[in-house]
């Protein structure tokens, strides 16, 4: 009796297997419904919006799709126009220059800092240094921008007051196109040094401690140990940081530049993102700004894909 019941249950299970499998997966699809809709609208929607780079787009009151369908198609004219603009060469150069300097600075200084911090044996000291240097990382660029503009202010800022004591002329650090890019690198380093140091310190802990013991017994001092064990031991993570930085080379830091710059430093401080914002939102040149943005996206996409590919090949790095 029970055997028979079991048998019928089994067969009914088998017959409805594909059905129940789907039934079992249905809740998973439903769960993702709201997030998927949001992504379709706010991530894929803008991708559709890229089309206006190929149009002479005029926003109309009848909505985005109406304007898009009825817009005048101009093909690649906007891109031809952009590549001829003298501004474009300079914003492209600024973007690469600022981003490259930031990548280099954010590897070298945290590396030195981490190596020196690693020599400290008192854990409370090490921890306090890390905690304090990590703080700016969590503050927004608006807050940090407010602080920086205050302390570097030409008239009232403390830096210029100190410089004044030594008899130097006050400098407008964020208004001088010659120094502005370096100020960007310096202040970006200030924000992120704690974060990058922790990454490198984490990598340092993965080095086999017996290597140091062996080297010490062979008579190698700390300097030699650092040169021959520590540096080779973390070289792969350094390369990884550099490669991933390369993928990000089109992003020279919109937030930071936006809060710190002004018209006087557009010549050296304007990057693709800030230019796009000024042209698009402030001046209403939607098609021009979208085309510039698209150019950036395409280059970024290629750089990101290539750098992830290299990172994956070189050190098994994977994002998913």
């Amino acid at each position, binding site marked *: 009796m029970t055997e028979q019941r079991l048998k019928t249950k089994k067969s009914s299970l088998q017959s409805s297997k594909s059905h129940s499998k789907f039934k079992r997966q249905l809740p998973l699809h439903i769960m993702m419904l709201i997030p998927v809709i949001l992504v379709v609208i706010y991530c894929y929607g803008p991708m559709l919006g890229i089309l206006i780079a190929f149009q002479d787009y005029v926003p109309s009151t009848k909505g985005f799709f109406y304007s898009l369908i009825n817009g005048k198609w101009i093909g690649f004219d906007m891109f031809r126009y952009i590549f001829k603009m003298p501004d474009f060469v300079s914003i492209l150069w600024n973007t690469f220059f600022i981003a490259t300097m930031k990548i280099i600075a954010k590897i070298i200084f945290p590396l030195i*800092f981490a190596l020196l911090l690693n020599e400290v044996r008192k854990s409370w000291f090490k921890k306090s*240094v890390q905690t304090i240097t990590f703080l700016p990382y969590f503050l927004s660029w608006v807050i940090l921008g407010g*602080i920086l503009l205050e302390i570097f202010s030409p008239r009232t800022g*403390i830096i210029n007051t100190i410089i004044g004591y030594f008899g130097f002329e006050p400098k407008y650090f964020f208004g001088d196109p010659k120094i502005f890019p370096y100020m960007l690198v310096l202040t970006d380093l200030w924000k992120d040094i704690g974060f990058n140091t922790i990454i490198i310190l984490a990598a340092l*802990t993965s080095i086999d401690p017996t290597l140091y013991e062996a080297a*010490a017994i062979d008579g190698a001092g700390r300097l030699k140990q650092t040169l021959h064990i520590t540096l080779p031991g973390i070289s792969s993570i350094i390369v990884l940081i550099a490669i991933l930085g390369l993928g990000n080379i089109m992003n020279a830091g919109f937030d930071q530049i936006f809060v710190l710059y*002004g018209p006087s430093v557009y010549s050296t401080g304007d990057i693709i993102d800030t230019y796009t914002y000024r042209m698009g939102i402030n001046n209403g040149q939607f098609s021009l700004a979208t085309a510039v943005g698209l150019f950036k996206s395409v280059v970024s996409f290629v750089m990101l894909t290539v750098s992830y590919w290299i990172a994956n090949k070189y050190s098994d790095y994977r994002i998913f």
Partner: protein
Amino acid sequence: MKEKSNNDVLMGNSVSRKVFVTINTIFLILVTFITILPIIHIISLSFSSTQAAEGGLVGLLPVQFSLKAYTSILGKTSFYRSLVVSIKRVIIGVPFSLLCTILVAYPLSKDKKSFPARKIYVWFFIITMLFNGGIIPTYIIVKSTGIMNKLWALILPSAVSVFNILILMNFFRELPKELEEAALIDGAGHISILTRIFLPLAKPALATLVLFIFVFHWNSWFDGLMYINKIERIPLQTYLQQILTMPDTRFMTADQLQELGNASRRTSNAAQIIISTIPILIIYPFLQKYYTKGLVLGSVKS
């Protein structure tokens, strides 16, 4: 005892070592101070009198201690209004983003066999990480979905963060499979597996995400600038951006213009910076703990 001698061999105990340690300590203290000095300066500025601030007398300690900057903020409706907007944003935005993250991370944590569509979904989300429409098309889309000037404009477009999803998904995948199988045999559905097994076990990961999302919402200012153009609805960071970093008077209200000429502006700005930083400072110890852990796990994976 043995450990100590071992240490001696490792570190060396020579004079040169001692010199190095001293110089190194001084150098590290110096760098630490340079990092923190600007923030200390702003704190002292906020507690100093207007005259002292204008005279350039304030260094690292408040001069002519005064709470006037803080009491003057009490009477500032624009600061309050923005503070309330930011608090609202956090109260609605954090749970909403967290919910979106959970709802995606759970299905994606399934293996290929029990959820064949997984791969399609993963690519669907990954693509948004690699490619985006840029600010102008995003602005146009947000505008055409009719959420301009609403709190939703600050919450909906950024609600789904692929980075957060990856964190939670990886955490879910490392939970023991047996638990889920046992629950399945007991006839539990996905919802009860998620709410009764996965979520309680994922508390550390969820705490991390709450912190991430909180910091994100609290620190965001650009979306406020783009999507909110009613002065009374802008969040705190956008408000700060306008008074602190935009000398551009086109966007200022009569209130703000008057303040620009006001001598107490510097101390008042400093006080507003400090107040806006307090929430981050309160959660900072937790933040640091989780960040460090997460980073160590993330970077030394291979």
